[in-house]
């Protein structure tokens, strides 16, 4: 590897844990060499770490060891008698740079990777490092920038008296596994459209608070609509019940919450949601009627140069 490349690895601050193979195939010392041969053939690997019954790493056996055993006519021996026990290992938090040096100094082809407690967590080959580097270089390509450029010019490219983009998401009730997916998509869309990062962040936080409110409180879930035009994003969050009994309290009183305790245990319902939404948004309108439902409308200017939160 040329020197320049090594410098680049150092600059990336790659760690072994980022590039190693995680699904490690292991054998026990008691496994017959014939079985090892099959494992190597089927998985197309040339070295296997040997672990005892407690899962501790005790050795490493390579295809060279296997060849040597076959040359000696020792077909019927076991892994334990043929493995190498002078173990050279790396830690998952070690830099890839340090691992490269270890490869060069020792001449070994593969290194078992241990975590901070000495458990075997992966294997590292030079191939893994190369793949990790290639992945990083690919990420450097300008694809994302090109997409972003095109998207951010949509409002200039498409001519009309009033162009806007409408994104609509249905939010099912009590679906905590997918909770936040809609807001994540809104965030991604605004980023693509070239909005200021701080504004995207505020919009995402407000949207997410509102989305979780739908999931936690709304009888039948609800609908999130994001309307984006050249100058602002308007988020409308609506449901058909149960409605907020005391809107003023929900908006003004710190810590006031109607969230049930089991959901509070998940980290929600600190009585801060609506207050935080108001803090994030430039404008906010909340209408609610018990038995009818709630409609929350907020807007954020997309290209304001004001510092975020200035209007707190």
């Amino acid at each position, binding site marked *: 590897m040329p020197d320049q490349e090594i410098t680049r690895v150092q600059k*990336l*601050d*790659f*760690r072994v*844990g*980022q590039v190693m193979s995680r699904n490690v195939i292991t054998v026990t010392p008691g496994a017959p060499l014939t079985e090892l041969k099959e494992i190597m053939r089927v998985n197309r690997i040339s070295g296997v770490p040997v672990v005892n019954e407690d899962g501790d790493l005790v050795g490493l056996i390579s295809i060279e060891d296997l060849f040597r055993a076959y040359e000696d006519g020792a077909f019927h021996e076991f892994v334990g008698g043929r493995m190498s026990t002078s173990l050279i290992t790396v830690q*998952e*938090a070690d830099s890839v740079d340090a691992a490269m040096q270890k490869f060069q100094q020792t001449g070994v082809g593969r290194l078992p990777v241990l*975590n*901070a407690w000495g458990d075997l967590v992966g294997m590292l080959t030079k191939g893994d490092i190369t793949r990790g580097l290639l992945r990083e270089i690919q990420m450097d390509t300008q694809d994302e920038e090109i997409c972003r450029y095109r998207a951010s010019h949509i409002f200039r490219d498409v001519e009309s008296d009033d162009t806007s983009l409408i994104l609509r998401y249905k939010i099912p009730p009590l679906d*905590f*596994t997918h*909770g*936040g997916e809609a*807001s*994540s998509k809104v*965030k991604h869309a605004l980023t693509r459209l070239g909005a200021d*990062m*701080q504004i995207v*962040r505020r919009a*995402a*936080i407000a949207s*997410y*608070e509102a989305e*979780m409110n739908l999931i936690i409180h709304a009888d039948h879930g609800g609908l999130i609509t994001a309307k984006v035009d050249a100058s602002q994003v308007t988020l409308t969050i609506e449901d058909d019940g149960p409605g907020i009994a005391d809107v003023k309290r929900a908006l003004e009183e710190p810590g006031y919450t109607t969230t049930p305790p089991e959901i509070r245990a*998940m*980290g*929600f*319902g*600190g009585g*801060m*949601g609506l*207050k*935080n939404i108001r*803090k994030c948004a430039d404008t906010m309108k909340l209408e609610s009627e018990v038995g009818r439902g709630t409609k929350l409308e907020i807007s954020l200017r997309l290209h304001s140069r004001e510092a975020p939160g200035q209007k707190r």
Partner: protein
Amino acid sequence: MRLGQVIEILNGRVLNEFNHAREVEYGFETALLSDVLAHAQPHTTLILTEITNHQVVRTAEMVDAAGVLFVKNKMPDESAIRLATQVGIPLIVTRLGMFEACGKLYAAGVQPARKVE
């Protein structure tokens, strides 16, 4: 400091792939996600928590957190780790308790993200 240093200081274990050079300036310990949404500083806040559900990952995503650190060896499930990888949120787990984890990071220069009001 860098995430790599956080891992070293807390003897942490990494749960997904991320850039260990990512900057951490602030720490935020929490059992309440709304609190993070209301107070986390952008980009350089590390969230320390015992909450291991999907929502902690989503919350970290929304506030552009530098990562999530689970204390007391609390492990998120496989799908939460996948989600974190998908949205680019580093996950680390430490055996240390909240008090010790915060103390060590604070002593090493990580600042509180929550402003005293």
